[in-house]
Structures are given as C-alpha cells and as structure tokens.
C-alpha cells in the first residue's frame, strides 16, 4: 500500500508540471479525486502508518492522475459527481423551481409532442398535395355570384362573407395555381402541442394566392375576402375530386367563427396507403395567404381606417373597421410568423420548451380547443403564445409618450424561467389599457395610440401587424390574467397540500364548478340586442360573435368591481356542434347555449347599492350612459348623507339572498339589453340554498312563531343574554364565573341548518316529527379555588351541585327559564366515574336550549397522575408486570377515556370554536361552504358516526386560510388573494369535493393553517412524511393537523377508518364527476345529496313519524310531516312537556348499535333526520372459526359436514339472530330491517 502511494505521488509530480488545461475541469477533478483518495486512505489504514495517512489527506496527493487509483476505490458508494454532472445539477436547482421540478418538466414534455415515428406518411402526403396543387388549372375570371352557382352545383358552397357580392358588382373572381406553398405554424418548427380531448394536431399549409388575382382597391368592402373565398372553394372542389388521388375528407373551418378566416381542413381516410397519416392523429389545414408584394397597400389596413363603406346611416361618414382590417392582415402573417419563430428557436435554446409549457398550461385551463367548456375567444389563439413569449423576450416598443416599458429579458433563461416570466407578464400587464407592441427591428407601421383607440385589447407581435387579442372578449382577458396570477401564487407558495407541478401542469382546471363563483347557462336562441349597430356587426364578420362580444362588454361594465372576471365559455368543438362544417355549408354554425362564469370580488360583490353619478352632475353624458346601462332599474335616490344620486338598489329579503346579488345583476342586464327572460338564464344557487333549508311549510311556521330572532344572529343574541343572566347570579353560587365560552357550531355559523328556537306554543303547532330542538353547547369556567375536592369522582359530584345552584338561581331570576341537570349520556359510557359527563340544560323563555358544562383544570392534573408512566414517584421502578396490569385496569382505561374527552371538550373545542368563528367573519363564503359540505357528509351517512363536524370545518377551512398569512389579521386581505378563495358556497363545495376525491391521505396528512402560518421547519417531518398504515380497523386514518394539534388526530381519532375513508373518496369522486354534468345541462343539485343504499348488506328503515328530526331529511316527504294521526293525541300533547332539547332517539339507537356491534358490522346513518341506517357485515365473521369466550359477536355453531367429521367446535355469525336483536332494540323506532345481501 505504501509503495502504491509513493507511485501515486510520483505521478502527481508529473502532472503538476503540465499546464492546466481547463480551470473548471480541474476543480471538478479535484473533487473527484478527493473521493477516491479518501477510499484509498481507508484502504491504507490497516498499514498503520501515521505519516502515510496524513499525506493521504493532504492537498498534494489530490492532484494524482485518476488512472493511477486502484480499482477498489471506484466501488465506493457515493462518488463525487463529475464536472458535467455538477453543472447539470446546479443548473437544475438554480434555473428551475427545484431540481425535481426540472426532472418533472423533462418527463412531461415528450408526452405532449407528436410521435415523429408516425410522421413519414404525412410527409409523403404533403409532397403529393404540393404536386397536386401546383398542377391545378386556372379558372377564367367571372362574376362572383355566377362562379358560386357553378360551384354549388358541384356541391361546394363558396363562403362569401358580408357584405355579400350582388348582381351588379363589377369585379370578378378567378383562380390560378398557387404562387407558393409553405408549411407554416408550429408543425414545421416542431413545437406542436397535443390538444385536449384527443383533438387532432394541426398541420398548417399556407397556399399563397398569386398577386395577379388582386387589385389595389380590394381591401374595400370585403372584396379581398370574396376573392379568397372563391379561391378556397375552388381548391376544395379540386382536392375533393377523386381524381386528385388524395383520399381525404375536406371540410371548412372558420377561425374564431369568423367566415372571413375560413380555411380548408383535410382529414385522412384510413386506407392504409403510404400517404395515410391517420395514426398520427393530425389534420392538414389549408390557409390561403397573400404576399406582401400584392397590390393591396398595407397602410390602408391600420386600425383606424374605414374599409367597409356600405349603407352607413349618415352620408359620407365611415366608421373605422379595426377587426376587418385585422382579418385582412391575418392573410399576410403565416409566413412571417414562421420565420420569426424559427429565429427564436435558433437563438434561444429554451424557447421551444417554454412555448410548450405555456401551451400545456393554457390547454389545461381551457384557453384552447377542447370538447369541454373552453374560454371564448381563445379557441384558435395559436398565435397568442409565441407573441406573448416574444413580448417577454424582446420587450416592448417604446411608446411615443415615453412611458416606462417592458425591458427585454436575456436569452439564456431556462424554459421554466421563460414560462414564469410570460405568466407574470400576463398577470401584470393590462392589455386592455396599454396596448403591447413587441419591439421589432423595423418600427411598427401603426402607432400604439391607434390600437388603443380602436381595439379593446392589443398584443401585436414584431413580425406582422396582427393583433393576437382581436377576437377575445374583455372578460376573458380578465380571466387569463386571473389564472396567470393564481398559477404564480401556486409556484411561489411552499406549503400547499398539492404538489405545485401537478397543479400547474397536470391537473385539468377546466371545470366550471371550482373555477367560478357563479355559473349561468344562457340560452341565446331568443337573444336580441336592444341596440344594434349594423356596421359593428359587419366589422365583426359574424352576428353571433358581435352579440357575444357586446354582451360580455356590457356585463363587465355593469358588474364593475363586483367581479374579477366575467367569462364566456363554450366548447370549441363537440360532436353536436363540430368546429368544422361540410363544404355545402358556407357559414359556420354556432351553438345556441353559452355558459357564463363569474369570479367574484367578495369585498364589493354583494353590495346592495350601486351608486351612479350625482343628480346635479354636470356630466349629462355620464348620467345618460348610466340610465342607458341600467334601464328601469336606475332610480334617483336620496341618501342618508344628503347626496342625491342616480343609483341601482337590489332588494334582498334574507341573508342567504345576499349572495344572489351578482346573479340578479346579470339577469337584469340580460333581460334589459338582450331580452333574455328568467327561463333563458339558469343558475343553480337557489337549488343549493334549498339543500340547507327547512321545508317551506315548516319554515313559515317558525317565522310566524319566532319572528326575526332566528338564525345565527338570534342564537348569538340568546347566548349573550344568557351570559349576562348567569353572571348576574354572582353571590348565589360559591365561586364566581370567570368565563363562558361557546363550543357550538350554531354559534360559529357552521351548523348545516339555521339554528331556531322552539317554544312550547310553537312546538304544539308543529307536527311531532319536526319538533327537534338543537341544544347549543357552552362551557363555564370558574375562578381558581382550593375548595374543590382533590379527587376526580368527588369533582364530578360537586359539578352537580354547581349546576343545581345555577339552575335554581336562573329559574328564580329569569321567569320562563327552564333548567335541569342532566347526569350524562344515558348509556353504558356513564359507568366511567372519572369522566366529565353531567351538564346543565337551560331552555330560555324564547325557546333556545343550551347545554353547559364546567371546566375545572385540576381534573387534567389528576388524570395525568393516573396515566403517568412513572407514577407519582418516578425514580421508583415499578415492576413491568404490574405496570401492564395497571394498563389493563379499569381505572387506567377510564382515566384514559376521561382525559381524551377532557382535552377535546375543554382544551380543543373552545379554541377551535374561536378560530372558526373568526374565519366565518373574515370570509363570507366560509360558513356556507361548511354547511353544504356538512350536509353532504351527513346525507352520505358519514357525519357524526364516522366523520366529526370539527374535521369537516377544518377541511373547509384549508381552502380559505391557504398558507395562513392572513389569519387573525385585521388588515385587508389583498383582492388578488380573495379571488383564489371561493366567494360563494357553491364554489367552495365543489372545491372540497374535488379535494376529497383527490386527497391521498395514505401518503400524508393535511396541515391547516387555522392558527396562523406554518412555522418554519415544523411539522414537515411529522405530518408530511409520516405514512399511515392502512389497517382495517384502527381508528381514524385522516391526519388533519393544526398548530395546536401537531399529531392531527384530535378530531379524527374516532374515524373515518380505512374502509370509510376510501368510501368517502369514492363518493366524493362520484359527486365530483356529477358536478361536471353542469356542462350538458342534466345537472340537478339535490341529486348530489341522495345516497345510494344498494351497497349495504342490510338497511334498517325507521318510522319517520317518531323521528323528531325527520324535518331535516334531505328528501323529507311533505306528506309525512303532517299532523299526528289522531286528533286526541294532540290534546294530550298540551299537558306534557313537548319541547325536549336534544331528544333524538334515532341518534341514541345509532350510537347504541354502533357500540354494541362494533366488531360485527359497520353502521352508517344520516344524523340530519335520516330515516334509514345502512350496515355492512364484517366479512371475516361469515367464515366459521373456533369458539372463543370473548369472541365479541353473536354466534351460531356450525354443523358438522358429516357425522364422521371431527367436531372442531366452529362457530359463525348468527346474522338472523343479530337482525332480530336490532329489531328488538329499536322496537317502536324501526319499521323494518331489510336484508339486501
């Protein structure tokens, strides 16, 4: 070994003499050799020579030649990375979000690109097409209508656009073979991106029409377009001809539904020939173009030029036609775009990848084609993305006003950096106010001010003059801005439940339910604009486009700061309304329904008053405009501060209705401006409301009986009154009351139903199965005192005395109050004497019921003493056996249970209550979301028995608190942040459903920042990495941690267990996919809350007449909510107490059955007035097994197979016996037990 080292040193000296070739390599090889050196040093250790070892670590030896190292060193497990590797790794971590982000991007990109191995047939086809087109014979010039008639005979309609040619036009259409045929668009540059929903890749072929066909004045009155249309029709006719040998289906397609931008679409017929490119899933589009050398002069096409000059009202006045001009310019652009993109790809290495990422992002958000709802205006926005990237890379054209403009970015950025820059440009640049003109080498032909004046939103790329935003309604531009902002937030934030990469690129975000606060389905077939401008319609090229664009603009104006975006959605191509049309059809067909989505701004969305200009304002134009916008809704009003102003006021009767204000605005505007009445505009808000409301008949009785003091507000007031009354008892009870805290969902706005009071007289007017009174839980906290006994059982007894004192005191001081001391829950759990179980039941004169408990913190210490591992004297070693024995002992088990209840009831519940109540105040939609989600959990038979109400609140809270930055802060939350959280309960509900269907609780828990942002380095290791072992029957599997509950088990200890949690996921998935059917109009809100019962082994049907809560049933039968059967039964009611707070025998039966048969079957029920329980047997019990004394289930001996067989004493589940027992336990309650399997 020593020899070896010496040799190495010699080699090293040699290498030192050589000049260093490459600095970088040297550094890296240094590192590398260091590693090898170390292992060499390890080897040398047994030689025992100190000096050698030291040298081994020295700098000198590090320079040794790698070849000299003995082979054993290469076996070392973690060799230092080579220079190349280091560079790659460093790049990945520095230039991307993280190194794994880069790897994920690398894995993603190949999946969205076409398979080049399938391209050869396409190439052959294109070659054939080229030859064929170049040989086409010319067609003599003829009158346009005559030419059209000739073609129509052959079955090809000429897609002439408005204004149509007439008989006395004096120009002619003709055809000559193309001057040039070029492959354009993303295909030749190899940046094609797979489209959504299996739509085809587009291969664009630009066919340049000869200059000779055109004249200088052809830009006028759509003459150019008519000539183009004829050219296209002729091409279509000849390609379709079987003699062409091309064997393709030919159809028309119009970009953005504009007939002026019609192109030919060739789809291959599968014939297996050499030119059959069916497998590539592509289609060839033929776009007629024109060269810049044509006689038409470009300067005539600036946005301010008026090029449609027919029948305008006033003589001699011509309105500018920016869109028309833009459409004409589009015919120049394909080749220019191709070249520009090619240059970018050549000069910027990451350009192609960035473009692909951007388009995946857009596709996933519906800014592209798709057979699901996509954002209107972006269907054919293929040019938008390169233009956007160009804007980011090259910067903006300096404006004449000298404003600060976007500066160019470097060319060496990574794909991710470019992608992020493009998004941030989208998010921050207001394309509507500031037209963006990409900086180009030559100056732009038309100044930005012209665009600003005549176009709504502008993005013009460097090479051409086309506005990429020309067809996009303004609201949809708001939407892409909003989406970009949202994505940036996701990329910046570090503590989200979902992986940012998945969220940004892999998830489909096109669903309307989670994206928009309010969704409308509008039937356009009867829509008629109140004011129609024929000129604008001509400029738009199609009446539908014009209508939609206008509708969007008016809605946007009317909604104003209520919204972030008003978006129109329509699938770009479905089987009913395909984007392509047969050649016989000259004009694109349009779908008559459109979806409107609103993203609300909750700070203003629900304002009842919209203030217009003051009545005495000078600006009469503004006044007229306001009146024109609002029509009959606009009224002159005098306000409290003395102002008199034109204004719009929305009438709202209940708190629920307030969230309908934006919908009211939309309905009014559509009615006033477009004549669309109620039945043409559909929303689902009221349907959601009815899910958490009492049946109408009962509700009116409550309103009559209790007046306005109902709902959460009423409950709060009742609570405040009670606090005052109890505090006034000072002196009558031995200790003074320090604090009364609430722990009830009725006092934090999250109970599924509005809390209602119930007085004796009101109860008498209600049917017996609607007389449920939900008690409100509160906690009393007394001052510290040494007078308490220092023993748990005695403490529980003393509590009784306190309750008795308060009860007597209250009944004396407040007439009409009824108070009684309740000893416990009335089942077997009462046997635990260490546990806090008694409470005080107070029914106020107004009919509110409260359940009050006493929190005495000495209990915790006493319980801990029993539970403590060490016992009172930690240094005394307790024999292990005895310790185990204690573990099994009744006292220990009781104490354990008691401590759990204590912690949950007195420590966690009040804290949770305060946090949730604060959240309800902060976010208006939070309470509604909780209520809907609770209703969902209840109606699918999970709530109560398996999923606690608190954990539902936590799950809902997580989509509101986000990373907890704004928790408990009084500062205004930025509007952008507010737009990410749902502003209506419908959206919140959909988001939770989506979350539940996707949540992988097996892989890690959830951290909810309910109490403020997550602290650095906390919880990551515990909640993030901890895996939950899927066990069949091991308590709850969900981990929902908060700052005060690091383990995340306080609210999920009792369930759901693995089986139930999987069931929740499956049902949420089903609900989620049902939510998607909003798109095809078969959606019914109540359907999501109807539980399928056929999966259960047996169903226990209850008698709805005896259930006090039946009124809460999701599908309560109004007929069953009638009066009792007999008139004299009612008379009997008068005498006895019929207000029984919290009396719910169905729930008691459920808990009894669940506890009694916990090892026999799993029971499910709807706590909100469900009239059936469902149960599933434990499948293992059906197998015969040896008899055990503590088997824990009701069994029957299995008969021997034959007389000879040995009697093994096997037993199996006695299912018939169990069902009989259930029927007996619930006699009077149970109508029938139906065995289903």
């Amino acid at each position: 070994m020593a020899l070896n080292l010496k040799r190495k040193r010699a080699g090293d000296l040699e290498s030192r003499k050589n000049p260093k070739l490459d600095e970088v390599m040297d550094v890296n090889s240094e590192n590398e050799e260091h590693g090898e050196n170390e292992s060499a040093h390890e080897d040398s250790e047994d030689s025992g020579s100190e000096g050698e070892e030291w040298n081994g670590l020295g700098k000198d030896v590090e320079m040794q030649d790698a070849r000299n190292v003995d082979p054993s060193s290469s076996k070392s497990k973690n060799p230092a990375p080579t220079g190349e590797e280091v560079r790659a790794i460093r790049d990945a971590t520095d230039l991307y979000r993280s190194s794994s982000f880069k790897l994920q991007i690398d894995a993603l990109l190949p999946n969205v690109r076409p398979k080049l191995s399938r391209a050869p047939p396409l190439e052959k086809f294109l070659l054939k097409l080229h030859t064929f087109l170049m040989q086409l014979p010319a067609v003599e010039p003829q009158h346009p209508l005559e030419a059209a008639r000739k073609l129509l005979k052959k079955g090809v309609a000429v897609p002439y656009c408005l204004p149509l040619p007439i008989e006395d036009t004096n120009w002619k259409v003709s055809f000559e073979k193309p001057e040039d045929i070029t492959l354009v668009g993303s295909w030749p540059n190899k940046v094609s991106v797979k489209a959504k929903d299996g739509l085809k890749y587009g291969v664009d072929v630009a066919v340049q029409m000869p200059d000779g066909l055109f004249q200088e004045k052809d830009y006028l009155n759509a003459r150019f377009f008519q000539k183009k249309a004829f050219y296209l029709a002729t091409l279509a006719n000849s390609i379709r001809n079987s003699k062409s040998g091309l064997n393709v289906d030919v159809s028309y397609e119009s970009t953005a539904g504009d007939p002026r931008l019609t192109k030919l679409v060739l789809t291959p017929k599968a014939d297996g020939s050499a030119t059959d490119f069916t497998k590539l899933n592509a289609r060839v589009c033929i776009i007629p173009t024109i060269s810049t050398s044509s006689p038409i002069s470009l300067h005539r096409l600036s946005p301010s030029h008026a090029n449609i000059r027919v029948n305008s009202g006033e003589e001699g006045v011509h309105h500018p036609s920016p869109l028309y001009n833009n459409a004409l310019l589009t015919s120049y652009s394909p080749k220019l775009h191709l070249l520009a993109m090619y240059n970018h790809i050549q000069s910027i290495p990451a350009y192609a990848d960035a473009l692909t990422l951007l388009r995946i992002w857009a596709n996933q958000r519906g800014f592209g084609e798709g057979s699901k709802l996509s954002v209107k205006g972006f269907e054919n926005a293929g040019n938008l993305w390169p233009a956007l990237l160009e804007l980011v890379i090259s910067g903006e054209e300096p404006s004449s006003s000298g404003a600060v403009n976007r500066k160019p970015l470097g060319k060496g950025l990574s794909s991710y950096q470019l992608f992020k820059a493009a998004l941030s440009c989208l998010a921050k640049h207001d394309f509507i106010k500031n037209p963006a003109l990409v900086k180009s080498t030559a100056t732009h032909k038309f100044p930005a001010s012209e665009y600003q004046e005549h176009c709504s939103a502008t993005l013009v790329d460097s090479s051409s003059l086309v506005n990429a935003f020309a067809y996009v309604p303004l609201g949809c531009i708001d939407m892409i801005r909003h989406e970009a902002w949202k994505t940036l937030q996701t990329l910046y934030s570090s503590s989200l439940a979902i992986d940012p990469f998945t969220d940004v690129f892999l998830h489909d975000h096109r669903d309307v339910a989670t994206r928009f606060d309010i969704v409308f389905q509008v039937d356009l077939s009867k829509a008629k604009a109140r004011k129609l401008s024929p000129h604008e319609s001509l400029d738009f090229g199609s009446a539908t486009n014009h209508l939609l664009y206008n509708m969007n603009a008016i809605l946007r104006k009317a909604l104003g700061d209520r919204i972030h975006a008003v978006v129109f959605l329509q699938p770009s191509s479905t089987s009913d309304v395909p984007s392509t049309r047969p050649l016989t059809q000259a004009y694109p067909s349009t779908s008559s329904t459109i979806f409107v989505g609103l993203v609300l701004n909750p700070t203003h969305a629900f304002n009842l008053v919209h203030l217009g200009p003051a009545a005495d304002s000078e600006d009469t134009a503004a006044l007229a405009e306001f009146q024109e916008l609002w029509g009959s809704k606009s009224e002159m009003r005098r306000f409290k501060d003395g102002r008199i102003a034109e204004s719009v006021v929305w009438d709202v009767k209940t708190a629920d209705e307030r969230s309908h204000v934006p919908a009211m605005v939309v309905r009014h505007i559509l009615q006033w401006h477009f004549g669309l009445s109620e039945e043409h505009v559909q929303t689902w808000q009221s349907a959601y409301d009815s899910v958490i409301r009492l049946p109408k008949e009962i509700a009116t009785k409550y309103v009559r009986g209790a007046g306005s003091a109902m709902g959460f507000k009423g409950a709060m007031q009742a609570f405040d009154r009670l606090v005052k009354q109890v505090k006034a008892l000072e002196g009558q009870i031995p200790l003074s009351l320090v604090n009364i805290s609430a722990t009830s969902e009725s006092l934090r706005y999250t109970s599924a139903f509005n809390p209602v009071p119930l007085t004796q007289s009101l109860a008498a007017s209600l049917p017996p199965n609607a007389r449920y009174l939900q008690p409100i839980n509160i906690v009393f906290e007394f001052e510290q005192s040494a007078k308490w006994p220092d023993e748990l059982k005695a403490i529980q007894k003393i509590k009784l005395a306190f309750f008795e004192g308060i009860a007597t005191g209250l009944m004396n001081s407040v007439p009409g109050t009824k108070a009684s001391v309740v000893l416990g829950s009335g089942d077997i759990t009462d046997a635990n004497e260490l546990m806090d179980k008694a409470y005080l039941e107070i029914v106020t004169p107004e009919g509110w019921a409260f359940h009050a408990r006493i929190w005495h913190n000495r209990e915790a210490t006493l319980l801990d003493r029993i539970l403590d591992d060490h016992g009172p004297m930690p240094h005394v070693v307790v024999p292990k056996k005895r310790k185990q024995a204690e573990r099994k002992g009744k006292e220990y088990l009781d104490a354990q249970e008691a401590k759990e209840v204590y912690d949950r009831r007195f420590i966690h519940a009040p804290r949770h209550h305060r946090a949730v109540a604060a959240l309800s105040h902060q976010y208006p939609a939070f309470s509604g979301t909780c209520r809907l989600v609770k209703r969902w959990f209840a109606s699918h038979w999970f709530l109560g028995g398996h999923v606690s109400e608190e954990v539902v609140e936590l799950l809902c809270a997580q989509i509101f608190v986000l990373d907890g930055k704004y928790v408990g802060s009084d500062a205004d939350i930025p509007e952008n942040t507010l737009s990410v959280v749902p502003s209506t309960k419908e959206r919140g509900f959909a988001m939770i459903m989506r979350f539940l269907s996707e949540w992988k609780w097996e892989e890690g828990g959830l951290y909810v920042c309910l109490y403020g942002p997550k602290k650095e380095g906390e919880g990551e290791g515990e909640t993030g990495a901890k895996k939950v072992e899927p066990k069949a029957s091991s308590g709850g599997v969900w981990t929902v941690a908060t700052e005060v509950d690091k383990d995340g088990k306080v609210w999920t200890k009792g369930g759901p267990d693995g089986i139930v949690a999987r069931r929740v996921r499956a049902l949420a998935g089903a609900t989620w996919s049902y939510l998607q059917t909003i798109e095809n109009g078969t959606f019914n809100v109540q359907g999501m809350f109807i539980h399928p019962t056929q999966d259960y082994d047996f169903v226990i049907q209850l008698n709805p007449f005896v259930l006090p809560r039946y009124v809460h049933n999701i599908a309560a039968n109004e007929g069953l909510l009638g009066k009792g059967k007999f008139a004299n039964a009612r008379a009997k009611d008068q005498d006895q107490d019929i207000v029984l707070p919290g009396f719910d025998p169905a729930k008691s039966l459920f808990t009894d059955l669940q506890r009694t048969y916990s090892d026999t079957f799993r029971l499910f029920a709807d706590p909100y007035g469900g009239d059936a329980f469902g149960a599933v047997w434990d499948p293992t019990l059906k197998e015969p097994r040896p008899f055990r004394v503590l088997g824990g289930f009701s069994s029957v001996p299995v008969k021997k197979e034959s007389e000879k067989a040995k009697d093994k004493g096997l037993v199996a589940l006695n299912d018939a016996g169990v069902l009989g027992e259930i029927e007996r336990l619930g006699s009077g309650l149970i109508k029938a037990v139906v065995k289903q399997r």
Partner: protein
Amino acid sequence: MAPSTSTTVVNGFTLLPVSHPSSSTHYIYARQHVAPKKAEASTSKKADLPAGRTLFLVNVPPDATERELVLLFKPCGTVEKAILDFDVQESQEDDDSDSEDEKEAEEDAMEDDAGPSSKRRKVVKQEVPKVVPLPKNPQRTIRKTGLTAYVIFLDASSLERVSSLASKTRQWPVSSEEPSGLAHYSTVYKNLRPPLDSIQEHVDTYMELFEYKLAKSKQKSKYKKGEAVVDEDGFTLVTRGGAYGKTLGGGVAVATKRFQRSGETSARVRTKKDKGEKEGFYAFQRAEKQRSELINLKRKWEEDKAKVEKLKQSRKFKPY
C-alpha cells in the same frame, strides 16, 4: 334455523337456544363456572362466585337484564343472583400481584366502584354517612354483544338441570319493567333529568361520605406532621415539596421532579465550550466540506430522479 332437539356441545359449553323475538333464534353458551387455578385469585373470587353452583354464560343478548336471566333459569331452580358484565373486574384480578394488604386495598376500591346507588356498607364503624340515591325508573343497559354473565344458583343440583334446557328452543322471558326500543330512550331521557332537590340531597350526602372517608384515611395514615417517617430498614420517607422536596419531619432533601426525570439540575443548559479545533481552518477541512456538499447534491439529484422515474412508470406525466 332452529336445529337441535338434541343437546349440542361446543368446546365444553352447552348450547342454549332461545328465541328472542319469536322469529329468530339466539344461542347462549353455558358451562359450569370453574374457579381459576391460581390459588390467590380464588380467595377473593370464591365469595362472589361460589364454585359448584355458578353457571358461566357466554353470548348473552346485549340488552339482557339480571331479572330476565333469573327468569330464564327459573325452571332449573332458584337463582340467587345473576351478574352481568363481569369481565372488566375479572381481568383486573388476573394479575399475580404481591402483598396481602394491597389486595385488601384493591377490594376496598372495588366496593367503592360499585357506585353510590348500591352503597350499603357494613356498619362496622360508627355512623357512616349514607348516600341518598337519585330517583330513577328502571331502565335497561345496552352492552356490547357477545356478553358474558354468571348465574349463581341457590342449590348445586340446579346446574345439572341446565342441560335439559338445551333440548329445545325456549322463549326469552321479556321483563316488562324495563322498557325497550323507543320507550327505553324516553325513559333514559327522563332518568337523566332528575328533580333538582334530589340532586341537592344526593350531592350533600355524597360529600359527607367523602369527607368521612378522607378523615378516616387520615387517621389511618402512619404519617404524622412534624415527625420523620423511618421504616424498619432505616429509610426516611421523603415527599415532594419546597425547592428540593422535604421529609415529612424535615431534614433530608430530595431531588426535584425535573432531576428525577432528566438528570439535569436546572433549566439553564450550560453552554458548551468551543471545540478545540476551528472549523474550516485547514484546507482539507474545507475541501472535505465542499466534497460532501457535492456528494449530497448528487445524492439528492439521484433521489429526485428515481422519484420522477417512478412517477413516470405510473403514467403520471400524461397531462391529458
């Protein structure tokens, strides 16, 4: 479903079919109670479960009451008493713990456990206060299914007659005093809300008893104030209190709880002195550090790579 006109025996248990209600059959497993072999365990148990005339039952219906069991076994002979849900106490006594007096203490505790309602102490000492029970209508207790129970007959001969019950399915005697079903829940609801004055009385008497017991245990206790307690081996008893604990009589100090738990004397952790060697002082240290950083970098990279590769396998990267 109803088999057995003949007796079935499973693992030494006689099968007693009962129909309850008439439509379905429930099976109770019965066996003569055999006292556990462990000698000392039997001492305490013998009194409760006399061998020879105790019947051990398994799988009693979850809502069965003592009265119903008595009625069921009436044909075999007079039943002294029926005990339901014995298993908790049973498991407690499974341990083979040590001293006799502890046993006694435990027994005492057990009697206390039996609850105030059944409190009937032997009047050994002078006027022990009695707890007034809360008024209560009879109600059932619904226990876990697969319940065990003991039936103690007056006469040992009754046991033999039990097997004759097995010959045919018998009707379960339903006691009408304790309601079931909906009526049961109404009763429970009422029982839980006793009149306020009775609560007052109940708590007052309970506290009297509590005070009495407290005083009693104080009297019994060996510890007197101001006197150190030294046991026969010469150890002084020390309890917690003061800064370092105290002996009851004073004198010897005892360590704090913190010290006992952690072995540390105070909350202040003494800052350790710097290590003799400075970090990054020698070139090799720096090189070493740099190298290990790079290795870590690569390891993380490889890990990420593997993770992404795994996801790739599951086709996760197909966005649509």
